[in-house]
């Protein structure tokens, strides 16, 4: 299945307000209505160009289901409209790959929604590529039925600008894991909104933004605990070199009746250069009184104690630094289950 489509740029205005305080996107030239035809090679493909919904057992096209997630009012997340979005229903145990490919100076706008039947299991690998010019806007939604499970990993190597939005809604005993690795030299906005809507729903989100040069990465996440006995675990790591900037805004909302929630959030920034810059802002909105909610943030360089440990084993300073950087990265990938972890670890 191949999806190609463009929204008319005249309808887009960049969102403003606190959530977008650090990241602004200019509309690329090519998205002006006059140039749309010229950039029509931009595409979103599923498992390569030859994918059809019939070719994957357990996956069928279905009607798009609107749900009011944390980014329902976000102009970029809602950019993909009817002609460039696709809804798929998943039953049984399904493994898929989803690529966002953007060719030179093009712009891509697309949305994909997975609706998981109760007990279904989806393993999804997503790659985003693009070169220096242009903008990718991709929205991915998971509506996860009772006891169903999503394991999702993505890798973004876009050299241009991109806005990636993930929205997940979990029914009772549903589970989701998203693990992502963002590299690149452009500007990336990640948005991850999770609604824990049923008892014992569990969500994990782990991201690594590995940025150098002038790159700019902005992770905005929301976990909304609408039900009691739900769990969420977030690890937001940034590895920054050159003059790279990373922003993390993590909102955790626990409704008044959502008792016994367990919500964890950790943000770690490793700065490899003096000019790299990171900011972290946890936003905790806790209205229930019997909850476990932990968050932490650290920003620093590779520590003397860590380096000394390796030096004291005869490993020279440059190798020690490389090994410790690898260790910082590895913790994120470890959050992904087996097959996805291997893909994240592959160069």
């Amino acid at each position: 299945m191949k999806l190609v489509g463009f929204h008319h740029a005249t309808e887009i205005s960049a969102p403003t307000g606190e959530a977008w305080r650090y990241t602004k996107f200019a509309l690329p030239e090519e998205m002006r209505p006059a140039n749309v035809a010229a950039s029509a090679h931009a595409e979103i493909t599923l498992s390569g160009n030859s994918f059809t919904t019939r070719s994957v057992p357990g996956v069928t096209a279905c009607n798009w289901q609107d749900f009011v997630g944390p980014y329902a009012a976000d102009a970029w997340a809602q950019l993909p409209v009817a002609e460039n979005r696709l809804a798929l229903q998943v039953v049984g145990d399904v493994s898929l790959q989803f690529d966002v490919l953007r060719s030179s100076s093009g712009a891509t706008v697309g949305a994909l929604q997975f609706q998981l039947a109760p007990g279904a299991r989806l393993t999804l690998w997503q790659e985003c590529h693009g070169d220096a010019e242009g903008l990718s806007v991709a929205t991915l939604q998971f509506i996860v039925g009772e006891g169903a499970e999503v394991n999702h990993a993505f890798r973004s190597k876009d050299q241009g600008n991109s806005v990636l939005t993930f929205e997940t809604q979990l029914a009772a005993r549903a589970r989701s894991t998203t693990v992502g690795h963002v590299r690149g030299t452009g500007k990336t906005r990640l948005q991850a909104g999770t609604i824990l809507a049923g008892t014992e729903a569990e969500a994990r989100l782990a991201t690594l933004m590995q940025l150098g040069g002038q790159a700019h990465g902005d992770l905005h996440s929301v976990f909304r605990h609408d039900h009691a006995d739900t769990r969420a675990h977030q690890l937001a790591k940034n590895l920054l070199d050159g003059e790279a900037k990373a922003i993390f805004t993590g909102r955790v909302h626990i409704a008044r009746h959502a008792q016994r929630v367990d919500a964890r959030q950790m943000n770690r920034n490793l700065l490899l250069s003096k000019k790299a810059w990171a900011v972290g802002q946890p936003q905790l909105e806790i209205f229930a009184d019997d909850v476990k909610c932990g968050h932490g943030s650290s920003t620093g360089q590779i520590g003397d104690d860590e380096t000394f440990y390796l030096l004291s084993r005869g490993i020279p300073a440059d190798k020690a630094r490389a090994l410790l950087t690898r260790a910082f990265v590895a913790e994120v990938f470890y959050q992904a289950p087996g097959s996805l972890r291997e893909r994240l670890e592959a160069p």
Partner: protein
Amino acid sequence: MLEIKNLSARVEGNDILKGINLSVKAGEVHAIMGPNGSGKSTLSKVIAGHPSYEVTGGTITYEVNRRPADLLAMEPDVRAKEGVFLGFQYPVEIPGVSNLDFLRESFNEVCAHQGLDRMDEEAFRQFARQKLALLDMDERFLDRDVNAGFSGGEKKKNEILQMAILNPRLALLDETDSGLDIDALRIVAKGVNALRSKHNAIILVTHYQRLLELIVPDHVHVLAGGRIIKSGDRTLAQELEKRGYDWLLEKT
């Protein structure tokens, strides 16, 4: 083998060591005991070359190729390659790097420095297996990541495994016995006793006499306020166990 003369050192602006004198010969086991904050850990870190510790006076002479060399002039990784090993009180976790790869990297760096051939993965695994067997340790240790998710006892055992593999001439064990149950303590003692020979020297930094029942030291030193205030044989450790440190501290 190791000659420390009038050594003083500071960390973060605080003077910790204030004139240490210590002479260690090949074949000897020394125990360094003392109350918290006396400078025991600092001494072992200064010998191994931790960059946060500034030596403000004195010398450390270490025998390299049967000749005295200035240990303080060597980079920490060079000290390790010349046979100095520090067993850490708080070993560092390195997720994403397997114990096998880490140990082989370390071992091969030391071999290369000493003009020996590097070992390939299979040969090294065989070699490491022998060391594991010696320590009654599970082979799965090799495939786990370095200290990642290890219990306190497992981390200490891993330090002893590293020591067994690197076969140092001078082993400094910084409170390797703290927080260990009796089984783990036996493994630590086994590793140290296996290393003990007329060519090696061992310095144990410890709070407790119980380790010294399993590894019998030739010399026991009491460190307090940055100085060695008392030296003796193994009976000193037994006396400290009975009487504590106060009687010594009052005298000085």
